[in-house]
């Protein structure tokens, strides 16, 4: 156990950074994820298939391609990057925020899929009943739909978190591999494997990343079961 926890400062930073990046990526993806899932589950509009394809793109493209596309659009000279830097002071390139963006984008299709499925399973007649009781569509969503899709939300969030913990290709392409700034667990493991005598560090970080992923998975299972039991839908 001592051997496992006896990390160098750089290794600790990689662990902390990974958890921070994955958490921010997950939380920031939730609102747009819910919105898009709602649109895809309920909306009827021209170009829905196209939108669905776009959302799923990061799942099928090589991660390096996604990372490069992010670099082109959100990089220092990319149009979106310039716009956000000038108007909001948000800079992505070679910062941990860029790693979070890359991880969020890569996990987005998984999150949207999980939420969309749970929205499609909601009985719309129950929502109509809330409408006859005086709730406007927004209140119906907040008080009825949202609680009913909570298990799906949790599943989607955990998938996104797990994906972010493991994301490598898009992150390293977009924001490189800078210790203390963009070096997440996978990047750190990769770095260890590239230097002589780095095997021990690589193994340590590998074990830590397994533990974090398992904890997240078990936590989501427990949470989903508790929510499910509370609702007790026939």
């Amino acid at each position, binding site marked *: 156990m001592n051997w496992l926890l006896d990390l160098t400062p750089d290794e600790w930073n990689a662990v902390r950074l990974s958890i921070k990046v994955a958490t921010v990526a997950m939380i920031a993806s939730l609102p747009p994820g819910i919105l898009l899932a709602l649109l895809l589950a309920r909306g009827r509009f021209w170009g829905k298939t196209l939108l669905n394809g776009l959302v799923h793109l990061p799942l099928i493209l090589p991660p390096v391609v996604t990372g490069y596309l992010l670099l082109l659009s959100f990089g220092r000279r990319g149009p979106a990057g310039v716009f956000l830097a000038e108007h909001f002071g948000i800079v992505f390139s070679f910062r941990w925020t860029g790693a979070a963006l890359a991880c969020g984008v890569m996990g987005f299709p998984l999150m949207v899929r999980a939420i969309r499925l749970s929205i499609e399973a909601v009985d719309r007649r129950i929502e109509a009943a809330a409408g006859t009781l*005086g709730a406007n*569509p927004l209140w119906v969503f907040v008080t009825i739909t949202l609680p009913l899709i909570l298990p799906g939300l949790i599943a989607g969030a955990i998938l996104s978190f797990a994906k972010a913990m493991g994301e490598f290709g898009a992150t390293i392409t977009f924001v490189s591999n800078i210790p203390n700034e963009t070096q997440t667990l996978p990047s750190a493991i990769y770095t260890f494997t590239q230097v002589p005598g780095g095997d021990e560090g690589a193994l340590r970080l590998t074990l830590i990343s397994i533990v974090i992923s398992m904890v997240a998975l078990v936590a989501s299972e427990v949470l989903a079961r508790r929510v499910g039991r509370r*609702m007790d839908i*026939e």
Partner: protein
Amino acid sequence: MTLSVDIRHRFGDFAVEARFESAGRLTALFGPSGSGKSTLINLIAGLLRPDKGRIAVDGRVLVDTEARIFVRMHKRRIGMVFQDARLFPHISVAGNLRYGRWFTPSSERYAKMDAVVDLLGISHLLDRRPAKLSGGEKQRVAIGRALLASPKLLLMDEPLASLDEARKAEILPYIERLRDETKIPVVYVSHSVAEVARLASDVVVLAQGKVAAAGPTEAIMQRLDLLPAEERGEGGAVLDTKVLRHDEAFGMTVLGSPAGEIRVPKLAMAAGAPVRIRIRARDVMIATERPAGLSALNILAGTITAVRPGIGPTVEIAIDCNGAIVLARITEQSKHTLRLALGQQVFAVIKTVSFDNATTGAGLPAEADG
């Protein structure tokens, strides 16, 4: 309250074209399945938007396609009880009941939690989850939930159709109580003669998307030809009576009506209580002289006011018994043998045992509030 509806709506190759007005305490939309009653009630609730037409409640226009008015359902303040209770599965019974209050302006909240819970006998269910309730309990909670939103009009879409007979008998008294003790006008969709005869003050009969007849329940129920084929056996006169006294020795209740005393199996009601009974036309025999040596206990004297052809080899005969109309369905042969004719003095004979819970109403079960 006056509800006025005049709409045209198409869905696929089915069209509803209905026009009626009603000011009743409980107006039944009555007809076989596929007659357009549910479409009509969904239009009134605002769950559907009509192709054309106008709907107004007490002068407040909810839909007017010509004036481009469409009040959205959450602004209508019209309560709705669905066939499947549609309780919110993630909230307790108490939470379900309170839901509509949040969206009712406080100046318009007339429904009181305690009163509604008492009215429906659901005080012991408040902490439970909807999944733990029986079908009848769910439906009572759904009625309470709609009432507690303090609606201006309550719509009930076949609220008993998915329940078995025992559960129906459990809920009917509560709906009667709701009709008599609250001031909320009710529109009640049903295909059952028993429910309509027992509950409704007014009936709108629908057939193939059109209004076939509309009027007070007693008058509409006389028209056996309006009933759907499978319900025709249930058709008959509807009489409003009063409990005169109970005959404890023989387990009977004596009801007073303009036609005279009517003996029915004992009812759990106090003397003086109003009881609406339905006398199935097929249960009524006709005698040309006052019969003697007969087991049937109810013999009502009257005059034949109408003779109408029935289905198959039957005729339907209306007998005016001192102002109360009793219907009898007899065979063509009996009519011929007895030489029955308009204006003739006859006796209507009804066995006491032909009355049952479905025709007299069982009253509230004694342990209702337990």
